């Protein structure tokens, strides 16, 4: 069941993205930024975690999860260290996506040659 809902919810996120591209003529960079900010806002309102419970990877794979995790890390640290934690804790949970992108980006640059 969770596989089905992961598919549907993840697909719906992409449809919203496609509408942003086609109807509002946004370029991908701006659309992605809006998505991340939306994710952060949704988590701020406490709506993103129930969505993850419901849809699993359908909510954790789209880029909105990036914003969600940033807020999560900040809040986790803030609970322990107060207001300073908001600054220091932001990358606490998120590191995986960015570090994986950097590591595999450099490896990819060694492995592959640019085309065209």
């Amino acid at each position: 069941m969770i596989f089905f809902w992961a598919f549907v919810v993840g697909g719906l996120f992409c449809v919203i993205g496609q509408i942003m591209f086609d109807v509002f003529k946004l370029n991908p960079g701006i659309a992605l930024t809006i998505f991340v900010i939306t994710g952060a806002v949704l988590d701020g309102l406490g709506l993103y975690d129930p969505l993850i419970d419901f849809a699993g990877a359908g909510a954790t794979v789209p880029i909105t999860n990036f914003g969600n995790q940033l807020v999560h890390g900040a809040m986790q640290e803030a609970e322990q260290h107060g207001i300073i934690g908001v600054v220091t804790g932001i990358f606490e949970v998120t590191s995986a996506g960015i570090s994986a992108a950097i590591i595999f980006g450099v490896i990819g640059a060694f492995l592959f040659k640019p085309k065209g």
Partner: protein
Amino acid sequence: MANKKKKNLPPAAQRYQEFQKHREIKRPLLKNCVKAFFVGGFICFIGQVISTMYIYFFNFTEQTAGNPTVATLIFITMFLTGFGVYDHIGQFAGAGSTIPVTGFGNSVISAAIEHRSEGLILGVGGNMFKLAGPVIVYGVFSAFVIALIKTILTQWGGL
């Protein structure tokens, strides 16, 4: 803003813009949305399969399985990008391949590969986050603002 810009243009350019607007190919919205839905959904489905595997065969909980899942997806993206497959998927699926983290990974990795010829430090290192940079910058900043508001509300507002 757009109107102001238009008025400042010479009449020939204005006419051209009208003409261009007229001739612009209308994007088939519904078809694109369907494609984006299925490809994006499929990527999330694969993500779910990977994270379920991490939960069943390794010692990860639902919470902790998220990070290795993202890393695995980006690892797969590296090969798809390197062999030029991801470009094709992107052309076909539009937002379906951009919105999942694989799109984020693709933008970083393709920039790294493309700028390899400009040298490792300034080429790869400097251009890697050219496309993904704004996402990180505004993601971090908005997360900071939201977490700040929430912390203030919970700690001092007694909410």
